[in-house]
């Protein structure tokens, strides 16, 4: 349950601007009042979460992480493993976003602690539906740990 004072924050870890744009578009289309913090790869995401660089000094701890699995530098899987091994971060749910529907990728993500694995559909309308279902689950249905 979010209050206007505490907006729902999604950390979007996505190297592709086109896809990040689709996520933001889908949130807008669904009129979802979530704040999207977009970082371009896993390393930047960890810097964000740990407020390691001046740029992220004021970073807000996200309620949910949407993670693209294929990224340069720190790969999505490595990032996921790092988050789930960090006691301060492991309570944040991470949902994997991927084009791949390969079994190995799906199983790997769940084993690393992903709280969902979503494939990016071709049709934007489908994607909008997906984001709606996703945010309904994480924003309306489930309880998330309070941290602020």
């Amino acid at each position, binding site marked *: 349950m979010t209050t206007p004072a505490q907006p729902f924050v999604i950390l979007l870890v996505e190297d592709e601007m*086109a896809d990040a744009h689709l996520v933001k*578009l889908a949130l807008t289309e669904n009129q979802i009042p979530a704040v999207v913090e977009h970082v371009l790869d896993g390393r930047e995401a960890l810097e964000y979460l740990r407020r390691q660089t001046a740029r992220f000094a004021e970073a807000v701890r996200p309620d949910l992480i949407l993670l693209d699995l294929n990224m340069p530098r720190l790969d999505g899987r490595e990032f996921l493993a790092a988050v789930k091994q960090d006691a301060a971060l492991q309570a944040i749910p991470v949902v994997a976003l991927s*084009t791949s529907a390969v079994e190995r990728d799906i199983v790997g993500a769940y084993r690393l602690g992903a709280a969902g694995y979503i494939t990016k559909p071709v049709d*934007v309308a489908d994607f909008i539906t997906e984001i709606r279902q996703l945010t309904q689950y994480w924003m309306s249905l489930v309880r998330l740990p309070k941290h602020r």
Partner: protein
Amino acid sequence: MTQPANPQTAHGGGRVARASFRLLCRPAHVAVIVFVLAAALAAGLIGRQEQYRLREERALVSNLVAERAYAIQTSVDRVLSATYALAAMVRQGRGEIPEFALTAGQLLRFYPGAATLQLAPGGMVHQVAPLQGNEKALGYDLFNDPQRRGEAALARDTRQLVLAGPFNLFHGGLAAAGYLPVFLNDGDDDEAFWGFVIVGVAFPEVLTPARLGDLADRGYAYELSRRSPDVAEKQVISASSADALVDPVERALTVPNAVWTLSVAPIGGWSDLSDLVWKSAIGLLFSLSLAWQAAWQARLIAAANAQERKLELRAAQRSADLQRFAEVTAHHLQEPARRVASYAGRLRALLSGRVDDTEAQQSLDFISQQAARLQELLHDVELYLAADQPRGELEACRVDTVLSAVVAEFTERVDLSGAVLSVASLPDALIDSPRLGELFRIALDNALRHGRSERTLCIDIDGEQRGACVRYRVSDNGPGVEEQYRERVFRVFERLSSSSDGTGVGLAILRRVAESAGGRAWLDEAPGGGCCVLIELPFAGSPSSRPRTEQPS
């Protein structure tokens, strides 16, 4: 290879096995082993040949000795036979031979080996011919000579011719004599001992017919010796040298009252040392050259093995790299393809109702279609690449269970196309069940897609066990595939008609699955003229067909 070996290859897996293999193939070891074998062989051959040569040589010498011994015996007998003529004369002359000197002189001419002829009535030499040079013999009493007394008595008592000697003379040379006792009868039956007729044997003339000197010329040492009853030790009558003979060939020859022995051996022994040295040298050279060649070959083989290992490793690495590259490429190309399709769709949604331009709509449609097609192709590439990996545990698949599940999936399509599907009971194959299902899925899809004709489509699935394999057939009664295209359809993205939908990767995946499971797949003409997909897989029932991959315990 001039550059040092890649440490990764040198320290890779199977190091122990490879090391022991290398030890076995080390050229030095091979060389030593081959040398020892070759040397042993050469030694054996040389030894046998030497033995054979020795036997031949001894046989030759034996013949020679026999011939010469016979010559000696004949010569001695001949000399001694002079006494018989003389004895006859004595008996005729009743103890007297008139003109003995003349008669004996004539007789001696016939007996070249005889030196003297003597008459010794009562054992005392009374007459000797030729007298000249032998005057000392006159008056010599045989029975009084301790050296000759025994033989004289023997001759008298046995009434036999006795050969006395040869003796070594004080002034050198040899002397021997044949004593023939003569008995005269004086009218009554009793014969009274008269005395001896003696023939002095001339040495070495008596041996001349044996041509012993010729033996020495031919490279043989000889020795003629005798053992007589009253002389214990061996007495050498004639010899080529004073040295003892080495393992001689001996031949006994019998003379009156004695056995003489002619012994012959090659000068310097039987073994031909220089010949042996030559042969050994050749044998050694032969062994060495073989060893060298073996070492060379071993080195070549080792080098070839190393090269082969290197190539295998490189090929495996390259194949893995290629597979990884293809996977990554397919995956990375998926993303932009999807984005193109997404944004084309988005654009269409945005433009709809606002822009009434059919060409713009059409262009967007083409973009969407092509992006979708690209995605489909990439997806199929991914499927193709993944087709050689088992998707579950290797097991003896209950093929009937898997097949009925696949058939159930196709029920709707089969009904829609009005086809008749008949499935026989099949023998089980050794493969993971997801991929076995995939095989039938592709074959069925292929039949439904391409088997259509004006007739009712009939699809038959049957198969049988063939030794260590099972063979499944999925045949239809459609138009079939011309023979020249039956291989081509197994290539990735190969389609025989542009009108049919699908990317044309199905049969390529089918073959990849079958081959990676240790089997094969191909097309044939169905009995009714249609197309028949044949799939061969290892049979689940025979243990020998189990691949060497890890088995769940």
